[in-house]
């Protein structure tokens, strides 16, 4: 029985700035203990508790895919105390990471189904982890055709541009990028994610939809998915709640009697319908 609150020491190896206004960065971290760096496994959609000693701890979705060996990536937006401390730190900074926590996307249940990924803003992190996992050579054939619909407020806000470029060149993937409002150089689509989803209208036949984004996007995306014929148990959502312990003990992230950190963060629409509307 080890103390679940003790984080493992990790070192920030690389910091990638993701958006133009420089308040979203991806931190590539490596565990100090080489054994752990080797043995640490997780599923896409799980999160870790990232500590900056002196500032505190906060739950961040793991953005890298389980197929990336030896390192973890956390995409963090500068909002509060811990995230600001992380944004002010340099490469080589020692931080704490513990986890993985949460259930993550059901990658087995999604096998040999069509996958529709709908992401918005920087909440695209764990969906990126899922996409990178599925597009990896060892896993690609276990999933049928994959559609990714990813939107952001403006081109500067689009994260993982380097991934989007590579994915754009692939033929076994239908990548749709949109922005709410383009700028001078923007040549791609313009429009809110729900409207673009209606335009693309992926078939819901033997398909699963994985959705994550700001509440307003979720509110308008759900009816579209239902319209397209997605059954409630085929729509997956990753919830965002305030978390402090990450292991279902501190009592704050509950929706009904489910703890989002332990029984979630991924729920099916069907499960959410049986839970009180308090998220």
């Amino acid at each position, binding site marked *: 029985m080890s*103390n*679940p609150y*003790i984080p493992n020491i990790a070192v920030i190896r690389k910091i990638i700035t993701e958006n133009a206004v420089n308040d979203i960065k991806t931190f590539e971290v490596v565990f100090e203990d080489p054994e752990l760096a080797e043995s640490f496994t997780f599923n896409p959609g799980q999160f870790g508790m990232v500590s900056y000693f002196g500032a505190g701890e*906060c739950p961040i979705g793991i953005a890298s895919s389980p197929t990336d060996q030896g390192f973890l990536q956390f995409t963090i937006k500068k909002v509060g105390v811990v995230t600001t401390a992380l944004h002010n730190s340099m490469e080589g900074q020692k931080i704490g990471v513990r986890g993985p926590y949460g259930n993550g996307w059901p990658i087995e249940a999604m096998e040999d189904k069509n996958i529709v990924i709908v992401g918005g803003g920087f909440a695209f992190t764990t969906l990126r982890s899922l996409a990178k996992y599925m597009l990896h050579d060892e896993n690609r054939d276990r999933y049928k055709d994959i559609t990714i619909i990813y939107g952001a407020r403006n081109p500067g806000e689009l994260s993982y541009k380097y991934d989007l470029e590579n994915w754009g060149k692939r033929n076994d993937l239908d990548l749709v990028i949109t922005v709410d409002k383009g700028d001078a150089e923007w040549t791609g689509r313009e429009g809110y994610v729900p409207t673009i989803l209606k335009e693309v209208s992926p078939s819901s036949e033997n398909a699963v939809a994985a959705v994550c984004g700001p509440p307003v996007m979720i509110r308008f995306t759900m009816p579209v998915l239902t319209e397209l014929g997605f059954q409630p148990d085929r729509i997956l959502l990753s919830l965002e709640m305030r978390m402090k312990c990450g*292991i279902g*003990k501190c009592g704050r992230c509950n929706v009904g009697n489910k703890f989002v950190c*332990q029984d979630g963060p991924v729920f099916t629409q069907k499960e959410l319908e049986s839970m009180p509307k*308090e998220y």
Partner: protein
Amino acid sequence: MNSKILGKNQLTKFIDEFIGEYRVFAPVKKGKIIGFDEIASGKETCLDFQNTKQPPKSVFFPQTEVLFEYKKGEKGLEKAGSGDRDKILLGMRPCDARALVIFDRFFSSGEHEDLPYLQKRERTAVVGLACNHPLNTCFCTSLGGSPFGSEGMDLKLVDLGDEYLVEILTNKGEKLVEDIKWLRDAEESDLNRARDLAEDAENAMKPKISTDGLCDKLDGMFDDPVWEGIHQKCIGCGVCSFLCPTCWCFDVLDEDTGTGVKRVRIWDTCQFPLFTKQGSGFNPRPSGKERMRQRIMHKFNYYPKDFGEFGCVGCGRCVRECPVNLDIREVIRAVMSV
């Protein structure tokens, strides 16, 4: 092993048998407040009290607890000290003892056990004290408890007048008293006297609040207008949660020690707005209504759904100490009558 008899004048001697080998916690009067504290000798405690202001949860779940310390420059983290000598908790009322069982069940559930709490709980013996005169703000019988309950206890003292009956309930309890030779065995008359006292105490707690079906009833009541009326006078302070023996929510934060950082967990309550306020500013429980609903739903619906019994032991502390007299028994009645 049958029950023993302990004279009230021998109580100090009885306690002093354990001092030294065990860390003994007992009710102590500090200023105007009676609370559980570590005692160095038997005479510091007095068992003539109704119930302590604060429950004994702080012995295992202190208000501020260091999880670990990170010293700048040093490798790794210095873990907080684990449980040390065995402990004895003496003079605990049946409701509080039962509350510890509820606490244990939650903190050892799920994938990750709460080690800091469980380590402190492991090496502890509970010597309970039956309630001959329950207060009329107590309602343990309405929630499956009883003034003479022995759930969660290793030994139970029953005040027979000028003597205590010492009931042995577990082998941990038996080990405590087996080598105290001067305790005399209880006779039939003592046991009958204890049974009568138990009955009187139980009858003194009529009428009970009906709580059967409360959990299922709450299932459909999330959006019921009754919550609007219930929360109105609540000022959102932490009295009911911090004095509640079955409230365990906590906050985790870092404290700068000048030479390093301590990660500390402190008591928190769902009644504070910051409990669920997110970094984006969105708060799923923006007003007192949602927060009060959460507290009631958790104790009478969510916890029972996961663990099969109510998350409240009816100790009455929140009834006695609420600054605006928002009585949880009235809330239960209001919910039951919808």
